[in-house]
């Protein structure tokens, strides 16, 4: 569904491209970091067009402290919603039960509905299983009548999904891209992979772990506030490539790693639209790799044309918010052609770091200590090299670091489950590097003279 923000509420987008456009003769692999920055005004009153569904896991395992904390958290989120936002609260167990309102619909936030919702949250009871696919399907139904604006869900769980995996996947495929969902796991009995799957399908900001239930309220309030800060939904990154070029991959690399390669939709010829969800005032970086047919020395090619668009219906009325060029130029100058752009190198490292952590932890769970040691060692070296101190600290709770430069580590004999899951969950969070100030590219400025 297209989203047409008011002219006054129009966000400003900026695209910056970092790359070494020079390629050796006979080669055609072009890498670039595409930085997208949006600056959106805070919308108030009637211009607010946002919908929020809060899904709280109320399966049997939530009983006690966790449920109480979840109630506090849900209330904090409701309080953070601005007047005029459409919202609902859903309890998730073996079905998706409407807590507020009682009917299957969204209601507008005002003083009365807010008070009623806060009361209704008090009725939450812990009982039953965990069927996240069913909960997400209900959220999608609630969002269906809403034809524009931000659609955001918060999903809280504490356990593993009880649904057959194929059913879970089927729902994810169906609802993918229809709304944005941020997931939180509380405790240590949930599975990072499951929340990561939801996050990826629904373009969340990366799953999060809430180790201490007492932190839940603050976290929910922050998520709801962040959602209120979003002003434009269904933004796509449109990547045009030359005839005969192949898009190797498109990955979001900051603030989290999210592989979008398989998500392209061709709305206009020779271009793929990659969904990016909704935007407030923020920065996101993408690593784009395009393979183009090699060209003659001295020739300059637009290897990729990146546009930030709000797609219109049927490929018409597309609203282009910003654009940038990924270039290729062939040269016999080896030194120039083989130089790797520092930001491309940085994010290549960050993506490898995320993968090394996930591989290492997976091998550790499977009892393959050699692979676990090698991969986590590599992760330590990458985190050290890129100055990713947060990840380096998390790694130190899982391995004893002997030499961070070479990545020589020993697995710790006992690891706190929370530490392992925190490392796993945060593995996709990257450290952002700043784009170079514009106009500082060495050599003459690209583009037609």
């Amino acid at each position, binding site marked *: 569904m297209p989203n047409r923000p008011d002219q006054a509420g129009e966000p400003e987008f900026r695209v910056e491209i970092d790359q070494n456009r020079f390629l050796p003769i006979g080669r055609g692999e072009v890498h670039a970091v595409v930085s997208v920055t949006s600056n959106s005004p805070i919308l108030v009153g009637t211009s607010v067009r946002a919908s929020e569904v809060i899904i709280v896991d109320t399966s049997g395992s939530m009983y006690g402290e966790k449920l109480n904390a979840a109630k506090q958290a849900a209330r904090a989120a409701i309080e953070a919603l601005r007047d005029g936002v459409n919202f609902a609260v859903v309890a998730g167990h073996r079905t998706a039960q409407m807590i507020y309102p009682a009917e299957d619909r969204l209601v507008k936030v005002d003083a009365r509905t807010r008070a009623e919702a806060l009361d209704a949250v008090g009725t939450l009871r812990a009982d039953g299983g965990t069927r996240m696919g069913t909960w997400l399907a209900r959220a999608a139904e609630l969002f269906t009548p809403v034809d524009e604006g931000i659609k955001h869900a918060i999903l809280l769980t504490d356990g593993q999904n009880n649904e057959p995996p194929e059913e879970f996947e089927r729902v994810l495929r169906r609802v993918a891209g229809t709304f944005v969902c941020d997931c939180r796991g509380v405790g240590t009995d949930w599975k990072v992979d499951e929340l990561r799957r939801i996050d990826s399908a629904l373009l969340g900001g990366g799953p999060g772990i809430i180790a201490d239930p007492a932190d839940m309220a603050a976290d929910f309030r922050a998520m709801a506030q962040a959602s209120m800060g979003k002003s434009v939904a269904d933004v796509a990154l449109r990547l045009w490539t030359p005839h*005969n070029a192949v898009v190797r991959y498109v990955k979001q690399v900051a603030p989290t790693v999210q592989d979008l390669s398989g998500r392209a939709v061709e709305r206009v010829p020779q271009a793929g639209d990659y969904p990016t969800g909704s935007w407030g005032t923020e920065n996101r970086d993408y690593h784009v790799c395009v393979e183009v*047919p090699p*060209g003659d*020395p001295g020739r*300059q090619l*637009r290897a990729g044309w990146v546009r930030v668009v709000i797609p219109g219906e049927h490929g018409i009325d597309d609203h282009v918010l910003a654009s940038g060029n990924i270039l290729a130029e062939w040269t016999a100058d080896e030194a120039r052609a083989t130089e790797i752009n520092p930001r491309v190198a940085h994010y290549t490292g960050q993506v490898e770091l995320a993968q090394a952590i996930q591989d290492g932890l997976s091998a550790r769970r499977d009892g393959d200590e050699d692979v676990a040691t090698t991969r986590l060692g590599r992760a330590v070296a990458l985190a050290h090299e890129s100055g990713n101190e947060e990840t380096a600290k998390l790694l130190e709770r899982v391995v004893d670091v002997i030499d961070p430069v070479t990545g020589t580590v020993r697995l710790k004999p006992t690891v706190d489950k929370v530490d392992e899951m925190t490392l796993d969950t945060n593995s996709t969070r990257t450290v952002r590097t700043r784009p170079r100030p514009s106009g500082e590219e060495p050599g003459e400025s690209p583009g*037609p003279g």
Partner: protein
Amino acid sequence: MTVVRTCPVCSDTVAAGDVFCERCGRTLPDDVREARDTDAVATAPQESLADQSRPGLVPGDGAPTAPQVSLSGLATSEEPSGDPEWEAVDAMATQPVRRAQRPAGVPAPAPAPEGVAPEWPPPATGSNPVQPTNPGLCVWCPGTVLDGYCEKCGFLQPTGRDHVEVRTRSAVGVSDRGLRHRRNEDAMAVRVVDADDPHAPGSVVAVVCDGVSSSPRSDEASRITAETGATVLAERLRRGEDPRAATGAAMTRAAEAVAGIAESPSSAPACTYVSAVVDPATGTTTIGWVGDSRAYWLSGAPTSSASALLTKDDSWSEAMVQAGALSREEAMRSANAHALIAWMGADSGEIDAHISTVTPTGPGAVVLCSDGLWNYYPEAQALTDAVPGAGAEPHGAARAYVSLALKAGGKDNITVVVIPVPTAQGGHRAEQA
């Protein structure tokens, strides 16, 4: 006879019906894809292709070259054909065109389809630069241009004369800045006399000029000289003038034109000049030149006349070789190798223009080029081998030559005009500017 299709990008040979080049993966332009085996000139059956049957083209050393038109004071003899020396040269250089009958039992090949010409509007017609006339069209593919880049192939479009292509049915020219020079000081012009013109119908006229880099405004010099030369040459042919007389007259007028833009003799724009007139029916080719831009005959089949250089450079190295003072290798190693001893410009003094006529046995191609290309392929056979089948696919060939020169270093501006022999009939369909 088989049309050799080559990829315009990597010059690899491609098969009939291919849409993409197998080597570089580039989409093949429709004119390459749709090129059909044609048999405009049937050749003798294979068994008769013994070497001794191969027709000669340029007998003996230096035969076609002789001083001809004096440009001193721009007063020119326009009756060169009366010169007995020239008659002799022509007699030696001219070969009859053989038109062997198709052997019995061999089916006639399918006629060339109407759509041999590109289905999209060519980026340029006549000899106007691509960019100014069609800023909206890509010079490399059928795409349109948006923000300076082609929306299909993505290439940054040349501005002004950086990369110019001229496409007619009878001749194709490509001129490129190269990789070292800041601007393109080469120029070319192509004209085709209408097929229904009473005189010289379908005759192809091409001129290539290379601005002398040590002179001021040499880009302007080459453009004015090439345009004047081609225009005058075509006009004289239309009026029924003999190609040799027309070639001489055109050179005189071109020399006047370039001399005319000089502010003073000490600041005189200057350039080289080479022209060709190709008769579509007989393949008879008249070349005129001053300086070191060259004309070649490229053999297109074993039955054709052997490949040959049709010009002799007005350069210091060539003079040393002719005088017997230095071997060709020694001369080319000298720092003076490329120093011109004749050019067109207000400061040129009395110079000798050269005219020669040959009638090659086709199929093949007449190629005019600046030293940006021939520096890398000085020998006629090497030039022929570099892009096989140039005459069959002139557009791909002209681009392939430029591409080869760029790959070899692109040290100078590169200009190539390819005129297939036999020429494509029907000059009226070759859209002119």
